[in-house]
């Protein structure tokens, strides 16, 4: 059977930033640095922050649960190493600014790398009940590894009000530079498929798609062949999608593949869909089959200013500084360190920020890369050219929202459906006047959240 390699599915809007994936797309997943200290954040997910389960000076084992919370939307955290708790202290957090972390001093000879998981040959997802799978996911602390970090068992667990029928496994990786999902799809193919089957069983979905952008033909081929050779692979198909940013946004992906709209302000389960990242699917297989918690993840360390870019299997809690040093440090031109890709990633100022479950990349950009955008050009007034409207995948009017926010008119901004913004950044990317539209909109959303808090 010949494999369909050209993407048929797409959505209106979006942009085509330079892909820059060639920096790391050929580098296979290598073991990461053996850090002597890791800082495991107690909040690596959306939802309730974990309470620490260990005290200062306690000895911990690799895989031991060190933080948990008895809340529905939460996920426990585990120690990636054998060692001793040095302190429980505030650390710089990429998303929330600062947060509590369990800082663990690794034992000198403790293996920081855990052995690679291999899927047993007699794997059969029928052996596991839906409850067992959900329980294993919950215990392993698995969250959406694509970026949002929503606890996975909440997403795929049974909900009688919103029955699910379609599972989409997201291997689009539409952000420039990042290749970690691509390498996972090439190297851990059978594990991903096992994860898809388990997730499908747990969520009760009847069909599943693996969505891959058509700039990754090798991944499309690898997954397609593995599905052909796998028992019970029917009902799972590969959906090649057009290469366009933000194809990997779940609302855009659902629109592209299923031609259906997730209601504004709603979530995919409202139309019976679950979207999981491929890395999450791989983690599910590992957690269910071998009971391994999520303590390591693949991180792409990339960008023009890094000496040795590559994909590394990194203990969660490793500081960005250690990771960059492990990759040969940065060149002099380094101007920005971004956790995630250049379109939606978060620029950090404190390099001791640890890697979390949702850190898919460390992108170190040079002045040249960001220069055309943020250094060289003067910001002018909006010339109302309408480019931001054309590229907005959610059909919003970014310039209207941003200017309302600028003048502190949050209700006007909300009148232009500010809350429907997915923060993809396409508007800022195309703006010839060099206005930080996405930044203004984000500010507006924070103002709105504060207003609501005050009223409540």
């Amino acid at each position, binding site marked *: 059977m010949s494999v369909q390699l050209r993407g048929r599915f797409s959505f209106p809007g979006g942009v085509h930033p330079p892909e820059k994936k060639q920096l790391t797309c050929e580098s296979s997943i290598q073991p990461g640095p053996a850090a002597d200290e890791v800082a495991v954040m107690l909040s690596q997910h959306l939802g309730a922050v974990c309470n620490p389960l260990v005290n200062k000076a306690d000895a911990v084992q690799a895989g031991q649960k060190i933080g948990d919370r008895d809340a529905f939307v939460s996920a426990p955290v585990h120690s990636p190493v054998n060692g001793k708790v040095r302190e429980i202290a505030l650390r710089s957090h990429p998303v929330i600014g600062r947060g509590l972390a369990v800082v663990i001093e690794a034992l000198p000879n403790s293996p920081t790398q855990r052995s690679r998981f291999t899927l047993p040959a007699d794997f059969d997802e029928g052996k596991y009940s839906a409850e067992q799978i959900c329980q294993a996911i919950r215990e392993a602390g698995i969250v959406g590894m694509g970026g949002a970090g929503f606890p996975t068992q909440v997403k795929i667990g049974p909900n009688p009000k919103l029955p699910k029928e379609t599972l989409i496994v997201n291997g689009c990786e539409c952000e420039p530079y990042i290749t970690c999902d691509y390498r996972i799809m090439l190297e851990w193919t059978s594990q991903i498929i096992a994860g898809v089957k388990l997730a499908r069983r747990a969520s009760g979905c009847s069909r599943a798609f693996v969505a891959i952008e058509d700039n990754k033909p090798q991944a499309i081929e690898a997954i397609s062949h593995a599905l052909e050779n796998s028992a019970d692979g029917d009902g799972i198909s590969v959906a090649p999608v057009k290469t366009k940013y933000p194809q990997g946004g779940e609302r855009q992906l659902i629109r592209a593949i299923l031609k259906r709209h997730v*209601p504004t302000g709603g979530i995919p389960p409202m139309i019976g869909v679950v979207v999981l990242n491929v890395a999450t699917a791989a983690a599910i297989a590992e957690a269910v089959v071998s009971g391994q918690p999520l303590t390591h993840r693949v991180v792409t360390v990339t960008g023009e200013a890094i000496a040795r870019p590559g994909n590394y299997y990194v203990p969660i809690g490793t500081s960005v500084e250690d990771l960059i040093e492990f990759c040969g440090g940065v060149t002099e031109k380094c101007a920005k360190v971004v956790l995630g890709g250049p379109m939606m990633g978060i620029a950090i100022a404190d390099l001791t920020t640890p890697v979390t479950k949702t850190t898919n990349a460390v992108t170190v950009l040079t002045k040249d890369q960001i220069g055309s955008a943020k250094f060289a050009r003067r910001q002018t007034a*909006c010339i109302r050219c*309408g480019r931001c409207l054309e590229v907005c995948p959610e059909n919003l009017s970014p310039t209207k929202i941003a200017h309302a926010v600028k003048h502190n008119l949050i209700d006007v901004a909300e009148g232009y459906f500010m809350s429907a913004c997915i923060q993809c950044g396409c508007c800022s990317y*195309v703006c010839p006047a060099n206005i930080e539209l996405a930044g203004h909109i984000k500010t507006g959303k924070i103002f709105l959240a504060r207003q609501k808090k005050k009223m409540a």
Partner: protein
Amino acid sequence: MLKDIRVSCAPHISQPLSTRSVMIDVIIGLAPAMAVAGYYFRIHAAILLATCIISCVTTEWLCNRIRKKPNSLDDFSAVVTGIILALSLPPKLPVWTAVVGSVFAVAIGKMVFGGLGANIFNPAMAGRTFLSASFGLLMTTWTVPATINPSMPAVAQDNTLNARTQATPLAWSKLAIKNRLGADIYSEEQFTPALIGEVGGSLGETSAIALLLGGLYLLIRKTISYHIPAAVLSAAFVFGGIAYLIDSYVYVQPFFHLAGGGMLLCAFFIATDPVTAPLTRRGMWLFGLGVGAVTMLIRIVGEYPEGVMFSVLLMNAVTPLIDRLFKRIPAGGKPAL
């Protein structure tokens, strides 16, 4: 390890596009029309273009100085205003008149509103309208192209009026309407001079081919979208066609209306001015249809031979209303409250 690292909100990369590059594209798009103007009107073209550009730029610089605002000349929008104004004026307009028009265009048309992006009306059209209202005679004193022998007979061999020696094609179309003798004075042969530009008229409006070339460049560069030009031209064609079908003896062919006067300059360079046009695609369609329809209304029914500037200003005024009419709804539908 790292001293000078920056933080900002995402995205951290952007398209190499700037307000200045958009304006430079427009200037390149206007280059063919400027070249043709230079060929047909020689030194007058150079004088008029230079006068308008210099006085527009100087006015913007002065306004910024007076208001103690940072210099904004590097976005090149004053140059674009100057060129468009010059191209829409009669070639032999006295220098002082052009200066007055430029100062009005930039100072009153743009800077009093707060500069680029805040103006309601197209600055060049505001300046031109001011001149029309104030110096009506000067603004209707036309010159024939330098390539035409002034002693050419006014009546061609087939007994129709020779288009090249008339004031402007639109002026005699108006004359034809008033005197009800369209078919007598009009012949198909005279369509060619209007295409290449060998007719009387405003500096940059005469050559349809040059304007189409420039418009094509802007479309290919995606500096403008096709919506406004398509809407303007199709509305003008339809309305011109209706008039022609009603009475082909009095009214000239619709193609003649597209090629003549400021229609093409308007469709590709004036109505597409992003600042004063609507944001949404549907809004652009309505805006363009309005510009085309009002222009034809003035040309066919109104007192003036040409209606481009009034129709553009009129539609500029309703642009905020159009934007409100076609407010975009999120892809997922209106949120449930």
